[in-house]
């Protein structure tokens, strides 16, 4: 059976599938930069302030939007 690698694009809203850095599974953020084998995810507070920017692999993320 063929497998399809998920693609995640800049500005997608993502949710961590597992803990990444200090952030537990379920934390949501936005992809702000894309690399060959990783993504940079911004985690922001309710007022929009950046709380952290973490690297994550595609496999560690679920796309929630769009």
């Amino acid at each position, binding site marked *: 059976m063929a497998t399809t690698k998920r693609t995640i694009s*800049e*500005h997608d*809203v993502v949710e961590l599938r597992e803990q990444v850095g200090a952030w537990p599974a379920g934390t*949501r*953020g*936005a992809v*702000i*930069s894309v*690399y060959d084998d*990783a993504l*940079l995810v*911004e985690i*922001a*507070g*309710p*007022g*929009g*302030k*950046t709380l952290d*920017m973490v*690297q994550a692999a595609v496999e560690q993320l679920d796309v*929630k*939007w769009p």
Partner: protein
Amino acid sequence: MTSSTPSGLPTGPRTVPTSPAPAACGRHATHEWPATGRSGTRIARVPESRRIGRYSCRDSLTCRERSCCHDAGVPWPPTIGQQLPLAEQAWGIREKLVAYSLNLDHEVGGPKAAGFERILGIVRADVEYLVEALRAGVLSAPISDVRDNAPFSVLCEVRVPVAGLREHRDRVVAVTTSWELRHADDRPRMVTAYIKG
């Protein structure tokens, strides 16, 4: 007293040089080690035991291209207080603002957009105004933070003063911007922008 091996190499106590270490080649400048205690750069994470003399940018793990940053006249890695390297070539501003930081419909960018509207009266229709304000401001505002994003890039924070629009036109507020630099002679790309409410 030291002895010699058959190959002629000296043995015995190792002498640690205390004077500036030679640069990797004649073209490469050497630099003072930054203060310890910061974790923003790879250089800052080099253990004290390895900080002998000065370091050469040629030896820096951050210099991913192994070409000297001084060839382009750009300090690398950037440090707090410096100007953003190649700020005049900054890019990605409009795209980031339209899709993210001024996009009220975006789950994460939406609160940033709300902040721009509430504090400075700037909405997405004003994107060209904000692009020009950030492009101009980043030419003179210093780097306020540097974040290591190894092995991909270095992220530089720059707080850019921006004047409001319409009923907020008498107000000037610092917009926090983050810029990604993937190597020493890279053009900075804006990855996020918001107002600390």
